[in-house]
């Protein structure tokens, strides 16, 4: 590299071959806001269902009702986004013509269908007061499907050829679990009187902590197998980087608010909104990082060349 005026590049430019700079991978056909929106609603529904079941078991009526209605509404909203995302929406039931363990989307479709039915039942019972035993039983079932629904989406994204998503397979489920806890906690502490919302505030705090920790390791590429610095780059740069930074700020602010939310409903609502915004930014950030990762051939070619060179 020629030296001029004592200046020299500190970071060597990545040298790699390509076919006229064209991407090796296809750009994912998934779109915003459908896919990141589904990730948010799926997480919210899953964690809210678990919250409702625990509230039932500990005799917190208002928190239970809020959790049940949130879980059912979010499951319905997420399903609608998934169907709208299909190239042939009228064929959405084809998702249930087989059960394929090798396809996270097949597994997820069955989980979502079961979870949607259970949360629908428990919410209907909670709102109308009819068949309370059925509502509680369905709610208990949804407390089992919920955590799966909130975290399988990490596998859904990771089980692709997109380097940033694939190599994030350890981080994404934990990130989505944290984000889901924060989302459901946010709704609970904003919608329920302060006296009953203690568990929701603690969920929000735990979730925000997990979300921040997982996002931090993902952005650094910690634990990625090869070329971690390069493969995690899309999480730090561009639109995805900006969204994830904004999300981190909102989540941290929301968590700080959740500490004080026991004393003021206004603070609870504001920090609930901040946590929700943070969770949405996280989901959109992860989505756009994948698009950037697929669109630049260097993320595909350089790590694979390095892998071939080391014979790993």
């Amino acid at each position, binding site marked *: 590299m020629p030296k001029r005026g004592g200046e020299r590049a500190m970071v060597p430019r990545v040298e790699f*071959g390509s*076919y006229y700079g*064209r991407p*090796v*991978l*296809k750009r*994912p*056909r*998934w779109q915003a806001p459908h896919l990141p929106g589904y990730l948010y609603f799926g997480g919210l529904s*899953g964690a809210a269902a*678990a*919250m409702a079941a*625990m509230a039932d*078991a*500990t005799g*917190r009526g208002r928190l239970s009702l809020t959790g049940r209605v949130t879980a059912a509404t979010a499951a319905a909203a997420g399903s609608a986004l998934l169907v709208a*995302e*299909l*190239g*042939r929406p009228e*064929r*959405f039931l*084809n*998702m249930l*013509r*087989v059960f*394929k363990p*090798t*396809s*996270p*989307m097949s597994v997820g479709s069955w989980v979502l269908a079961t979870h949607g039915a259970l949360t629908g039942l428990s919410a209907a019972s909670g709102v109308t007061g009819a068949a309370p035993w059925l509502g509680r039983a369905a709610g208990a079932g949804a*407390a089992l499907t919920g*955590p*799966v629904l*909130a975290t*399988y989406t*990490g*596998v859904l994204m990771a*089980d*692709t*050829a997109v380097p940033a998503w694939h190599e994030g*397979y350890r981080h994404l*489920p*934990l990130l989505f*679990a944290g984000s889901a*806890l924060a989302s459901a906690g946010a709704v609970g502490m904003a919608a329920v009187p302060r006296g*009953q919302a*203690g*568990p929701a505030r*603690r*969920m929000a705090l*735990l979730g925000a902590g*997990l979300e921040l920790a997982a996002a931090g390791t993902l952005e650094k590429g910690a634990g990625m197998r090869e070329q971690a610095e390069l493969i995690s780059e899309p999480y730090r740069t561009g639109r995805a980087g900006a969204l994830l930074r904004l999300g981190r700020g909102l989540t941290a602010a929301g968590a700080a608010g959740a500490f004080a939310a026991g004393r003021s409903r206004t603070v609870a609502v504001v920090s609930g909104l901040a946590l929700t915004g943070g969770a949405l930014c996280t989901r959109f950030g992860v989505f756009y990082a*994948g698009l950037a990762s697929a669109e630049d*051939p260097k993320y*595909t*070619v350089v790590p*694979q*060349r390095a892998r*071939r060179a080391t014979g790993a």
Partner: protein
Amino acid sequence: MSNSLYGPLHDVAEDAGYADPPARAGFFTDTSVCIGCKACEVACKEWNAVPDDGFALTGMSYDNTGGLGASTWRHVAFIEQSRPREVGDGDGGTRWLMASDVCKHCTHAACLDVCPTGALFRTEFATVVVQQDVCNGCAYCVSACPYGVIDRREGDGRAWKCTMCYDRIADGMEPACAKACPTDSIQYGPLDELRERARARLDELHEQGVAEARLYGEDENDGVGGDGAFFLLLDEPETYGLPPDPVVTTRDLPAMWKWAGGAAAALAGAVAVSFLGRR
């Protein structure tokens, strides 16, 4: 079942459930004799009634197709390379590389693994085909393919790719692209036979001094268990737009589910802990 997700697999069709399948069918594309005529692209479109995908000029080379996609199942790459001329370097200076790309019909096909509807399936010839009456356009296969082959067609909403002319080979005919190829750059036949032929051709080229000749996708120990459609290349794979060391994403699926299981347990545990203590 041990190598159903990853690793060498000899009985691909049997693994998919066929009792007594025919020999595994394959393409061997020898790019050293490709003349870039694009007859394969045209024959494929004609036989399979694939719609046009625009008449834009790329402006980068004689390749105005760009790459494989929902409506391009054979794609001829065109690369012009300049090397410094040296004394005694007879034809030095410039060389043209041409290569007809196609779906690799992987031994471990990520598109097929992740398809949630069963629209993508393994044929008795061990090729990978989309059932268009089943596909609901979820586009998971698009993100899963490590070669960037399969895509969703705009306006149609379903995923499309090369079928290795399933209809023709089932009737004992060779696929349209191989039939139309004037130099036999595209060869169709039983995969074992093609692999032998390719190794002989590689030795021949190495003897002639073409040291840069190499096979791509023929190794059953590679990340996708070997390709049903493999190539003889004259430069690095990425020069042709091919990934240098693709790995089927499903190799890591068991590990992915373990992390997701841990995360689900963490979520449930965090909810439970939040309800401890005073009301």
